[in-house]
């Protein structure tokens, strides 16, 4: 029928669109995202959370689970969880309870992970995503605090495994969605929106290569129009948006194929193999652990005062969705422009700083940030935070377009020069040094145009004879004579007036 899973999905969709009578499937997805919280020290110990240190150099007695050590909760991790809860409109539970999840693994030093089970710190909330058919609301079940495990390294040690406990005890916020997601594209949109949000509110650096933002996807399918959820499979540790999409596509295809062949889906945990673009069984429900959750007696119930929540709420930055709406009303931007500019707080702040220096020119600022700035940043592989052109310099440059000192084309030359840091990044010096000033003086232009008309009687005759092309040729001559510095719109209007006189 078809070889590749994503082709298979497309094939199904085609049948659906064609209105065929065979079984149509609905995809049901819930995501669990582990966001590493940006605290300097671990969630239950004072050891550093910095990434990339030599193995086991950032594991203290508590992380090693020496006999007798005890956990002490990092208030910064709680503060970040509350920040998240408030920004998705969730309830903050008080008290919330830390629980032990018991299982044995060499990179889990205590033999249990401290997590939350009943009464997580964040309950409910929503994330709004943009889909092809408009905005969609994805409900959140909960978000809870927990500690990360260490790492087992199975290569490089002959017949043994290495254990690195630097990551053990790193604070995580596990954000669990309801099964409201209906396609891999929606899953990616949800994950990207969440990714932007956690960075926006400063609780997670979002670095996916370093594992700061990891997704698990719970995927099932059911006959379209039915209520009962199908048996789900959980795909673990998807550390890029592309893998998330491909893993879901493969998994959906796999499940539909099994069901259409009359089989049943086995509830299991699966791993995505990016090299082979497929998911495969990691463990089945039968060999799943009984985690024996119970409240951790070493940690008291976490009480969060309304005053603290209020204080965190007051310090919360304006959220992306709110800013997006404001940009649409305040700067008359399209929803597309507004959403691109609010994809990260740095970009939005850059935009606002620029437009702050250039009131009334929101669209022009937006175009340059989304165009030139974003293009150059991509080319150089840097973030907007390290942009060599500051918002006020960009605003000065754009002001010279608005006041007709330079043309848009000349402005790009100035931009390149600014980017390279030439002439002390002074816009007016660059314009002067490079001779980019536009000729906008009517008298000077009139003399020039007259000279060109006198020198080209044939073209003038052609134009008057109805040959429109002759007009462009005359414009070209005028621009050439001014070395491109004439204001094109002005030249256009003046020439037209003279020829039609």
């Amino acid at each position, binding site marked *: 029928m078809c070889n590749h899973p994503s082709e298979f999905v497309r094939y199904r969709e085609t049948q659906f669109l064609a209105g065929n009578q065979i079984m149509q499937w609905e995809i049901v997805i819930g995501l669990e995202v582990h966001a590493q919280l940006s605290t300097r020290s671990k969630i239950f110990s004072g050891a550093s959370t910095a990434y990339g240190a030599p193995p086991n150099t950032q594991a203290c007695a508590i992380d090693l689970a*020496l*006999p*007798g050590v005890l956990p*002490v*909760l990092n208030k910064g991790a709680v503060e970040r969880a509350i920040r998240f809860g408030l920004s998705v409109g969730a309830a903050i539970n008080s008290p919330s309870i830390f629980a032990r999840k*018991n299982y*044995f693994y060499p990179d889990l*030093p*205590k*033999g249990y992970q401290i997590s939350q089970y009943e009464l997580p710190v964040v309950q409910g909330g929503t994330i709004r995503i943009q889909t092809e058919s408009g905005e969609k609301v994805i409900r959140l079940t909960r978000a809870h605090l927990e500690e990360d495990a260490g790492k087992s390294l199975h290569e490089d040690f002959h017949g043994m495994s290495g254990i690195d406990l630097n990551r053990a005890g790193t604070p995580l916020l596990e954000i669990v969605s309801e099964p409201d997601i209906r396609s891999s594209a929606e899953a990616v949109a949800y994950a990207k929106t969440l990714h932007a949000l956690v960075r926006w509110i400063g609780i997670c650096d979002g670095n996916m290569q370093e594992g700061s933002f990891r997704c698990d996807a719970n995927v099932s399918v059911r006959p379209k129009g039915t209520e009962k959820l199908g048996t789900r499979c959980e795909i673990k540790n998807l550390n890029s948006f592309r893998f998330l999409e491909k893993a879901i596509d493969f998994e959906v295809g796999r499940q539909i194929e099994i069901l259409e062949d009359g089989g049943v889906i086995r509830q299991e945990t699966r791993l995505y193999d990016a090299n082979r673009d497929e998911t495969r069984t990691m463990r089945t429900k039968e060999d799943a652990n009984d985690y024996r959750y119970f409240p951790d007696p070493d940690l008291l119930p976490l009480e969060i005062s309304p005053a603290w929540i209020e204080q965190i709420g007051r310090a919360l930055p304006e959220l992306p969705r709110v800013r997006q709406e404001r940009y649409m009303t305040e700067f008359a931007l399209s929803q597309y422009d507004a959403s691109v500019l609010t994809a990260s707080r740095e970009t939005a702040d850059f935009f606002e700083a620029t437009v702050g220096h250039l009131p009334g020119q929101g669209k022009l600022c937006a175009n340059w940030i989304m165009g030139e700035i974003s293009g150059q940043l991509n080319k150089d592989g840097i973030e907007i935070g390290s942009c060599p052109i500051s918002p006020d310099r960009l605003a000065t440059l754009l002001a010279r377009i608005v006041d007709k000192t330079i043309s848009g084309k000349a402005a790009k030359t100035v931009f390149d020069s600014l980017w390279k840091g030439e002439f002390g990044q002074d816009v007016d010096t660059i314009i002067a040094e490079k001779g980019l000033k536009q000729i906008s003086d009517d008298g000077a232009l009139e003399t020039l145009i007259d000279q060109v008309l006198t020198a080209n009687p044939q073209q003038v005759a052609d134009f008057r004879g109805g040959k429109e092309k002759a007009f462009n040729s005359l414009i070209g001559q005028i621009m050439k004579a001014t070395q491109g510095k004439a204001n094109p719109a002005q030249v256009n209007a003046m020439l037209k007036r003279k020829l039609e006189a």
Partner: protein
Amino acid sequence: MLNASLKQLSGQLAQKKISSVELTTECLDRIKRLNPEYNAFITVNEEMSLAQAQTADALIASGRSGPLTGIPVAQKDIFCAKGWLTTCGSKMLSNFVSPYDAGVIERFNAAGAVNIGKTNMDEFAMGSSNETSHYGFVRNPWDVTAVPGGSSGGAACAVAARLAPAATGTDTGGSIRQPAALCGISGIKPTYGLVSRYGMIAFASSLDQGGPMAKSAEDLALLLNVMVGFDARDSTSLQRDVEDYAGELQKPLHGLRIGLPKEYFAAGMSSEVELAVTHALEEFRKLGAQTVEISLPNVPLSIPVYYVLAPAEASSNLSRFDGVRYGYRAESYTDLADMYRKSRAQGFGAEVKRRILIGTYVLSHGYYDAYYIKAQKLRRLIAQDFADAYQQCDVIMGPTTPTVAFNLGEKSGDPIQMYLSDIYTSAANLTGMPAMSIPVGFGEKRRPIGLHLIGNYFREAQLLNIAHQYQQVTDWHVQSPV
């Protein structure tokens, strides 16, 4: 010198009539001579103890000493002490030299006390006879064919046999009070949260509490003054104003209302214990106290509740002993699962395994509500019983144990009988209230009998006052088996 109180020893040290080195050497000599029979200590390190004694003498010479400076204290082998082998009575930790000090050890070090050695104990504090220790049983110095009680059996033996003037213990279901009673010494379990659990190897986190064991209530007060204190490294540690636990010792007992729970004077108590307790109560009446009968209706459920909750927490607390990072690892194994299985099968003793199994069972899916949740509910009801009782009385008294010390080997094959040794003591752990045991007489073969005093939260000073007043008019606490 060995029968002297801490106050007397402290005075002699301060007046330089003796040095800490002399006192420490005397204890070490006695340990060397008598420990082979009693087996009260797992580890003795003369060099380290004497070094601390020298430091203490220097402190005394410089006039910067406190009440415990230079006093040898036997530390239960459940407290991690830097540079000391810390086994918790288990083969699992037979090679574990702690790289850090427990909060309690730090406080004794800061006070200038001398760590005279690490005392024997039931494995991971699980036992009531000290017979579950991987390092062998401890003998009761009053009758060497009897158990010393447990789990702090080594500590109780060390104080009773005058191997050390004072000791630390920990109490999860009675592990300070029961051995104190069986060895004829005094011991107190403070209110949960007063003594730091940091570095005290966890058995059942919500019940474990460290406390002192010594000859008298007055000694306990001095020790408690050092042991109690907030520790930010223990989230269950309580932040309170500093209290002088010796402050109320001299208060007369006129008008004191002693509650006698009918549930503690029911069947199961031996007649000799009942007689000794009755005599002790008569002394209190003579001191001006009055007794009132009270009821703690849910308290008979303490043992079943305790034996659900304590193993549940223990099963999880002991998961870290997996042979991966430290401690015992099996010699040979085929794969990871086999390494876990063999290391834990060989590293833990039978009683520890039994409790891990019970704990794992009660936390398992499908059983959690029926056992763990129900036990937690009962725990609250038991606490309510005590709260109600303190409306009618100031202190609750009864026997510490139903019988005098039993014979070595007598109950080691019958866990239920062994668990019932804690029948009177475990309620104070479930509620977190302070409780103590003081010697009030002897039974058959001069085996000691203890009186149990349970106070309301943070009323340690009152308990010590009551005990001290009794000890002013009786001499059970100064009698020694040696």
